[in-house]
């Protein structure tokens, strides 16, 4: 399909991929803005209650983020297939990790939706069944923390690898490639830190800022590819 290095005008995968990056970045940002949050990320009960009290909004935002993540995966496929010589190994590894990371995102967001539903059940449960209902909420939340930390590490490491591939390929502008590498590598390390420290407000804030910048990088890359492929 893609023997030629770079972005080929009219190539179907590049066209779909660029549209995927643009759509994905927009949906991820909208979904994250809508996602109900607690003020204190360390307070599990406050956090899950915020999600459960606005169950519908949690489901909508999780779905938007999910569709965005899938769209970004199609974009990553386009980037990976556009690099066939220098940096191809990094781009290939990056894409494989994007697939793993996307699967983890699905598990992670499925846990969010399940938690929202479990919290709604807990809030509606009669007094005798409240403790039992909260046990389910608590278990899902604890499971979610572990998955989320691993998810961050794998997903952003994947984009850092793609960034290395882009830098070495010379098919993309150097500023775009370096921006991808510099933005995505620190987010991967945040995941590792969170595994050790648990949820912290400072980490949460840094993650939100970096992931927003990362979404803007995805948008910029999508626009850059689209201008050549379309």
């Amino acid at each position, binding site marked *: 399909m893609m023997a030629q290095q770079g972005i080929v005008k009219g*190539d179907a995968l590049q066209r779909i991929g660029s549209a995927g990056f643009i759509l994905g970045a927009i949906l991820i940002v909208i979904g994250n803005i809508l996602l109900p949050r607690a003020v204190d990320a360390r307070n599990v009960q406050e956090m899950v209650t915020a999600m459960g009290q606005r169950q519908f909004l949690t489901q909508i935002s999780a779905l938007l983020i999910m569709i965005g993540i*899938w769209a970004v*995966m199609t974009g990553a*496929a386009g980037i990976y297939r556009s690099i066939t010589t220098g940096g191809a190994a990094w781009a290939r590894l990056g894409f494989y990790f994007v697939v793993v990371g996307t699967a983890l995102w*699905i*598990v992670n967001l499925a846990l969010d939706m*399940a938690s929202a539903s479990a919290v709604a059940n807990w809030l509606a449960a009669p007094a005798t069944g409240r403790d039992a209902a909260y046990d389910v909420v608590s278990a899902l939340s604890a*499971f979610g923390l572990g998955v989320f930390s691993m998810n961050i590490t794998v997903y952003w490491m994947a984009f850092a690898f793609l960034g290395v591939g882009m830098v070495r390929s010379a098919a993309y502008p150097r500023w775009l490639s370096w921006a991808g590498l510099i933005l995505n590598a620190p987010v991967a390390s945040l995941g590792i830190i969170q595994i050790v420290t648990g949820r912290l407000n400072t980490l949460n804030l840094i993650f939100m800022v970096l992931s927003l910048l990362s979404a803007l990088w995805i948008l910029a890359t999508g626009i850059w590819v689209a201008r050549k492929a379309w």
Partner: protein
Amino acid sequence: MAQQEGIVRGDPLQKIGSASLIIGFILLTIGGIWPLFVDFSDIQTGQRVFGEHAVLLQACALLLTFGFWAATIGMAGVHRSIIAGGAAWARLSFYFLVMGTTLWTIGMSLDISYAAALLNWQAAPEAGKEAAHNVVVMFSGVGFGRGLFPLEVIVIWMAYAFMAIGMIRSGIYARWLGWVGLILGLVGVPLGISQTFTGREASLNIFKGLLVITTFWFLAVGIWVGRKAWRRAR
């Protein structure tokens, strides 16, 4: 492997793929018969029925998992047969399908754990019943599966829709095969989206119908590819 566009006679991947699609149909049919006729439209009824037939539930989950693995192997053959028109869609489809199959496997492993948790709950002493029941709820349709199942449906059927677009655009496959796959995908994706909000149980019968028709689509594609890949030289 398959450098030549289309179904190449004797190509090992096409042979394995066509056989896998047919085996997938058989496994999904055997694994799906019992759940197809069991009423578990609400959590309590499902818990009672599954508790009475926990081992059968585990066997069905295993067969359904093997069936989806076989279908994915078959779709690898379809993906590799399309290298010109529609190749981008087939490639994207296969990536999503690998991911969807992984999620399906996780989902089915939850069902296997669910059956085991039900057995533990039934055997638990009175003092430990509540704790054992909490574990059951974790694995049930209101637990982790509540969020995971709809996303599995969306990913897998979106992958089939993409593959079907690839099949239609390639001109290699019978057009009706591609269109059937596309229609199945276009039913599956909104079904999964609706289940995100309503839960699995609310539209389980529609999902069962979709799964039955999809398995027949696997069979049709498997036979169609098999007749070309396995034909003898004249």
